[in-house]
């Protein structure tokens, strides 16, 4: 009989009427790297949360190292040596790295927190596992990659030997991903057991021994990764054939629409220069993507273009007019569309209905209101049209409260709102973040279709695959500067990675 480190048998978990896990079996051997694969909402995080004691299953048994156990809370999980890096990091931003790592397992001396000892221990661990962190840094100041290292250290600090990673690579650069893969591998070599959730099939292929596929809460199969190819995995996951490449015709570039001139932006408090002398333009009929590691000024750049921030110096010219100081609504009226980086905080009013959200930047138009009175019928008609065209799914159609919609559908709603206004310039920041393959495919198609109408599209993305497949032109941002402008068809991931990490600087083609 094989010794399993983790066995989850017949696990069922429902949320109200929704069955998130339906009679799932998962068995993981000691020292194995086991991948969990599935679409958005397939139930992967739920299953792992159960293993970690965050949720109680409605039915089913969990065995750790052959022993049946009850995991009522994360403490129980810790005691069993289970650690988890969550999909959404569970870090206290205003705490230092040390404080975050020790939280819940603090060492004290005479009742006083013994931060020094803990710090030493962390420093030592970080050397041992090649997880470089500065124990004194505050989490809100560090990069996402480092935050992830903190999360991993948190597990190790608690001496976990069953490690769960929930989508650990979603936020990392290729180089960081490579690094992480090595670390995970070394954990496995040390005899630790690893469960990793990811949407990225090549990663599974690269690192995992076995893979369990979930679909709509049900387990589809557990396969030996070495004996299964990527397209088979994808088919299992989605239940149909998927295409991996985006089909698009070459761009028909026309005159420039947006020109950014000598843009500099300093943070008010620290006076730190976030953007230094940024220059570029976006032309009608092309998709320009700004690639780069998160936190290199992309967010600020877009906020300046869309009017949320005012630059320290420089100009933004849109349709031959200087719009550096015009209001957001004027820019929208002038033909700018914006799919913001944070769909819930910036894109939508979650407590409004879908219909109310669809007119968020056009409610004052004659179509939707007269003399200050909203025309609800027009609003609903309009929304119903969009629902049909963009296939937005929700429980009560145009009257659904957006808070209750799934992330993918929320994203589609924003896309629908912005695209349907037919803006001359569509700006989209991370338009497919956290979405599954199906949804990504759809959104990419829409963006390309928009370009094909002769409009300009400006995208910010941290996903290299996305950048490479959708762009006509790629601008790489590093440390507040645009370091290179590349023709998308003439570059590859490795080259981009070098620019993104600042290891290389290039020509700004014709800028």
């Amino acid at each position, binding site marked *: 009989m094989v010794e399993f480190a983790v066995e989850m048998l017949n696990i069922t978990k429902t949320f109200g009427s929704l069955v998130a896990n339906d009679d799932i079996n998962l068995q993981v051997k000691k020292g194995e790297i086991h991948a969990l694969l599935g679409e958005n909402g397939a139930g992967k995080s739920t299953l792992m949360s159960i293993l970690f004691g965050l949720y109680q299953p409605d039915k089913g048994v969990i065995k750790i190292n052959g022993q049946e156990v009850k995991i009522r809370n994360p403490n129980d999980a810790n005691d069993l040596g289970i650690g988890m890096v969550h999909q959404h990091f569970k870090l206290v931003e205003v705490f230092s790295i040390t404080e975050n790592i020790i939280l819940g397992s603090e060492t004290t001396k005479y009742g006083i927190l013994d931060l020094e000892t803990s710090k030493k221990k962390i420093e030592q661990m970080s050397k041992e596992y090649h997880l470089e962190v500065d124990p004194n840094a505050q989490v809100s100041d560090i990069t996402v990659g480092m935050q992830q290292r903190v999360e991993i250290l948190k597990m190790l600090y608690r001496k976990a030997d069953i490690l769960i990673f929930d989508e650990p690579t979603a936020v990392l650069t290729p180089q960081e991903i490579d690094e992480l893969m090595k670390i995970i591998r070394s954990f496995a070599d040390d005899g630790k057991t690893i469960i990793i959730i990811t949407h990225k099939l090549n990663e599974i292929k690269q690192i995992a021994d076995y893979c369990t596929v979930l679909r709509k809460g049900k387990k589809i199969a557990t396969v030996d990764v070495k004996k299964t190819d990527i397209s088979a995995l994808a088919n299992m996951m989605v239940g149909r054939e998927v295409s991996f490449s985006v089909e698009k015709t070459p761009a028909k570039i026309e005159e420039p629409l947006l020109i950014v001139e000598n843009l500099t932006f300093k943070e008010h408090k620290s006076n730190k220069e976030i953007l230094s002398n940024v220059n570029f333009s976006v032309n009608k009929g092309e998709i320009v993507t700004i690639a780069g590691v998160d936190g290199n000024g992309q967010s600020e750049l877009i906020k300046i273009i869309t009017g949320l921030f005012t630059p320290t110096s420089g100009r933004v010219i849109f349709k031959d007019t200087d719009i550096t100081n015009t209001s957001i609504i004027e820019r929208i009226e002038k033909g700018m569309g914006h799919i913001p980086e944070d769909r819930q905080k910036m894109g939508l*009013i*979650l*407590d409004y209905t879908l219909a109310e959200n669809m007119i968020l930047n056009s409610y004052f138009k004659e179509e939707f209101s007269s003399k200050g009175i909203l025309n609800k019928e027009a609003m609903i008609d309009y929304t119903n049209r969009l629902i049909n065209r963009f296939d937005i799914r929700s429980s009560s159609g145009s009257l659904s409260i957006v808070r209750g919609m799934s992330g993918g559908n929320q994203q589609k709603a924003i896309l629908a709102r912005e695209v349907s206004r037919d803006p001359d310039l569509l700006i989209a920041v991370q338009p497919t973040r956290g979405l599954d393959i199906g949804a990504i495919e759809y959104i990419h198609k829409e963006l390309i279709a928009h370009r094909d109408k002769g409009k300009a599209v400006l995208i910010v993305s941290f996903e290299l695959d996305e950048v490479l497949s959708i762009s006509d032109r790629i601008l790489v941002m590093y440390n507040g500067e645009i370091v290179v402008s590349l023709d998308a068809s003439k570059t590859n991931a490795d080259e981009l990675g070098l620019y993104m990490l600042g290891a290389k600087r290039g020509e700004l083609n014709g800028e």
Partner: protein
Amino acid sequence: MENKRENSALRSYGQKVLSRFKEFRVSSTMDKIKASVISALGGILVGLIIMMLINFQGVIDFIITLASGKFKFDPNTYIIGSIVQSAPILIAGLSVAFAFRTGLFNIGASGQILVGGITAIYIGHLISLPGPLHFLVALIGAIIAGSIWGGITGTLKAYFNINEVVTSIMLNYVAAHLVKFLSRQKLVFDLFRSQTKMLPKSATIPTLGLDRLFPHSGFDISIFIAILTAILVFIILEKTTLGYQLKAVGYNPLGAKTNGIKYRRNIILSMLIAGALSGLAGGIIYLSGANATQIRVQINIPGEGFDGISVALLATNSPIGVIFSAIFINFITQFGSLVEGASTFKKEISDVIIAVIIYFSALSSITLYYLNVRKRKRLKHNSELNKEGDE
């Protein structure tokens, strides 16, 4: 710089205080009504139990006294009176509810009431106009003054990111002192009573003879003004683009801003309106009653502003609900007087009951949860959805 301020504005305290109100949005009107009614009944029940615990015989005697007619039960005082006199807290409740709906906690209604009141009184004395016109002008003055006072809070929040709770608390005191000063100026001062002079009849709120039809009730048209105002507020919030913008900013300032809705302008606008409503309440308070009510030369923060909070909360911030909750709360207050008259209990029992009602209404989602099995799933579902919002 703009962005910094914006970010911290987002994290602002008031916002956090309010986050829970967003939940109400998910439940249906019927649910809200049910929750309020259950809270009300629960509060009355608990009040009764407290009374019985203190003095069981007293409760029996109270009932006997009422039933036997030994205590003259005058419906004009105890029923009509409690309905028609609820106008001030009704409008104050609207002010608080309006602010809540647009993401602000207006704990400064009291100050706005005072400033509105003193303005009405000044206009009452300064200008002479015929009958209804005079009172209307005074009332409009009150609205404008209250609006300006509320606007200060909004402006400080919009431009300096000062939490509206702090500003409101501070401005209540500033108003108290300012109004004390204004009320002892020669023009309006009644030396013999150390309060403002009696207003001419033309400046007081018309009674249309209703006070004679229902003696002792204090009936004038202020209750009608209040109800009309509630309907107006309902229309603004639910039917107009103005309400649409204001609520959007209230629910999600950054989201609204990103989509071109002007954050600062709307914060200020929202406080201007909330202040205007409180100012109106002030006008109603000081222009109605037998000879209108005078402002005494004292440091005073009128209780109506705080009653407004209770009224709004019990009504789950629905303007139409506010009509009922104001009348109900005022009814409980009058009930206190009745109890004091017809039993050995003191009238403060009514405040105890109101407190319990408000406490229960805080628990309304739980109340409903246990009461309504059919809805149980949905509520749970909703709470899940909120989480997705936190991602």
